[in-house]
């Protein structure tokens, strides 16, 4: 990965804006230009992944951490407690690890009704039970009223690296197929509508869940022919795939026709001028699989409950390098860039 190691990212922005946390280009610059250089003395320039890997004696471990600051705390299909468990479980799962245990840290705003906190802690317990992980410890802080939108949660997860996994952007080859586990954009649009800022209603639910069952099925079906995986959260599928395109130096060509997007999500995106590919997911998997294994991999995911609408949505190509394209059924192709800024609706 010498091409990446030679790229020096500098961060010269004078202040931190919301865009730096939106998961797109600005987030990436912040992490690579300001944060990573101060933490790592070696290994700089390697592609960043969702989890870090440690070898302790014979054990190979994956560790990851994530903070949750969603507003509102509850929305159709889930809540911050569900996200806090599933988000971290998913980072481990797509990092090729079997999720084992979580630590959780709660930052609670003074004045939060106990019932609200109880509901979230119960949601975390239930989500952990569903995902088959234990929450083994944590910390609680209370901050002044008006400081924390009710509740912020940070979870840290640890897992054992799956022997079946050999994931790396470097193994991605032209001809490989891109697979998603189901409908994209459900979570982001659900939360956007739950905020009540837009006078739109839709029968949508967040997709928050553990994606480990998909990962497990994928490894069983395709093993080392699974080259790369992500759970496309903030910044959506477009951002995850742009990171892949950059890290592997190849082109990702999506077929818009085969992308599973619910009509409700498409409709909201059309109205608000958003692209479903930029919308966050909390229970989907995007994977690159060798061409010859793609059919098997797809069948495996479709056989997992919740994976029925999985689809092969694109392929890896040589050119244009480091770019994601979307090809429309009628012929045109467009570039699909990373999210820039926060998604803002257009006015006319």
């Amino acid at each position, binding site marked *: 990965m010498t091409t990446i190691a030679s790229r020096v990212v500098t961060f010269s922005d004078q202040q931190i804006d919301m865009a730096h946390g939106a998961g797109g280009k600005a987030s990436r610059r912040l992490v690579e230009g300001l944060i990573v250089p101060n933490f790592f003395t070696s290994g700089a320039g390697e592609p960043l992944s969702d989890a870090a890997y440690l070898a302790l004696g014979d054990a190979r471990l994956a560790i990851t951490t994530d903070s949750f600051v969603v507003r509102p705390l509850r929305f159709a299909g889930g809540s911050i407690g569900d996200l806090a468990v599933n988000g971290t479980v998913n980072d481990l799962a797509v990092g090729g690890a079997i999720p084992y245990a979580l630590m959780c840290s709660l930052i609670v705003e003074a004045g939060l009704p106990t019932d609200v906190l109880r509901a979230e802690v119960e949601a975390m317990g239930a989500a952990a039970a569903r995902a088959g992980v234990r929450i083994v410890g944590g910390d609680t802080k209370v901050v002044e009223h008006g400081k924390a939108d009710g509740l912020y949660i940070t979870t840290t997860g640890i897992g054992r690296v799956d022997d079946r996994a050999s994931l790396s952007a470097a193994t991605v080859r032209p001809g490989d197929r891109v697979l998603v586990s189901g409908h994209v954009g459900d979570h982001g649009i659900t939360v956007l509508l739950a905020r009540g800022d837009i006078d739109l209603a839709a029968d949508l639910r967040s997709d928050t869940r553990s994606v480990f069952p998909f990962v497990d099925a994928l490894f069983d079906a395709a093993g080392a022919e699974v080259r790369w995986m992500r759970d496309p959260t903030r910044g959506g599928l477009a951002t995850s795939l742009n990171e892949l395109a950059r890290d592997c130096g190849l082109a990702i060509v999506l077929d818009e026709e085969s992308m599973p997007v619910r009509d409700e999500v498409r409709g909201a995106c059309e109205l608000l001028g958003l692209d479903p590919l930029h919308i966050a997911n909390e229970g989907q998997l995007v994977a690159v699989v060798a061409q010859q294994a793609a059919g098997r991999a797809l069948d495996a995911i479709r056989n997992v409950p919740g994976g029925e609408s999985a689809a092969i949505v694109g392929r890896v190509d040589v*050119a244009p390098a480091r770019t994601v394209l979307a090809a429309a059924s009628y012929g045109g192709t467009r570039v699909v860039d990373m999210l820039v800024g926060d998604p803002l609706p257009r*006015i006319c």
Partner: protein
Amino acid sequence: MKYVDEFRDPRLIKQASDEIKRLIDPSRHYRIMEVCGGHTHAIYRFALADLLPPNIELVHGPGCPVCVLPMGRIDAGLSLVEEQHAIFTTFGDVMRVPGRHGSPIERQARGADIRMVYSPLDALKLARDNPERQVVFFAIGFETTAPSTALTLKRAQEAAIANFSVFSNHVTIVPAIRAILDSPDMRLDAFIGPGHVSTVIGARPYAFIARDYQKPVVISGFEPLDLLQSIVMILRQLRDGRADVENQYGRTVPWDGNLPALRVLADVFELRPFFEWRGLGFISQSALKLRSEYAPWDAEARFDMAAVQVTDPKAAQCGEVLKGVLKPHQCKLFARECTPERPVGALMVSSEGACAAYYNYVHRRDMAASA
């Protein structure tokens, strides 16, 4: 999805694209301006250039509200945040438009009370909920969004909400088209007429383009098939030597416009004698100000707002791109100093801006292909 899928049907799109190829005179170059920024966005978003013969050139017009707004208006609006301790509200498009001291979103990060709203009625609600604060709505857009501002002002008047005001930056599309037609460096063959604006003003106001300038106008929808069909209709007119106003977007655009919307506009707004447009300069009778009956809700009448004259950064060629004289990538700053992430000019900000659309959907594809 209804009203979307049938307008992206590959078979119909192929037919329209073939019809365009049949209709063109290969020895001739066609310059067609899409007036509306929404069309510019759709053209790039759907990669329609891939479906058109090379001798059809689409020229991007001035129909992107934040693109044509001089930087000084943003600064003037934002000055109310400090001077009046006001809550500044506006549409998402404006949030990242650079002002002299940063964009609204950057000012927000530094603590200014700036809020994005989806409707001016949301701004009015904020005023109701915060009676001790001034709430200013930075109004922007063509006749598309102006009726909702007008309706909000009527509500504010009815409910006598004293801490609400509007800073009007509404502009009107027809004088801008006339300015382009009168511009000496403009050689256009026809216009793709704006879709959303026309849902309000109808097709009638474009009659002068066909009558006085002999240029065909076809009002178009925003889906790939809409735009291709509009080009077919334009090419037929050109082949037959006709210049008419035609309405491809009849499913949404009534010939006479939206009469209740036009009435509310006339009740609340009047034309300014002149207004500055980026790239096009001062155009007379091209923008809307509040009538004197609404002076208590008119930020310009209520507050001392110095007319801030701010010229664009010298090297930026936004004006030339806006007039269609330069293509986005021909600007000296394009993709160098000016990117969607760090825009120098508003054309790189708005999703309807030609530069942002070109950068997002085409530029990197072409760069990579030529590398």
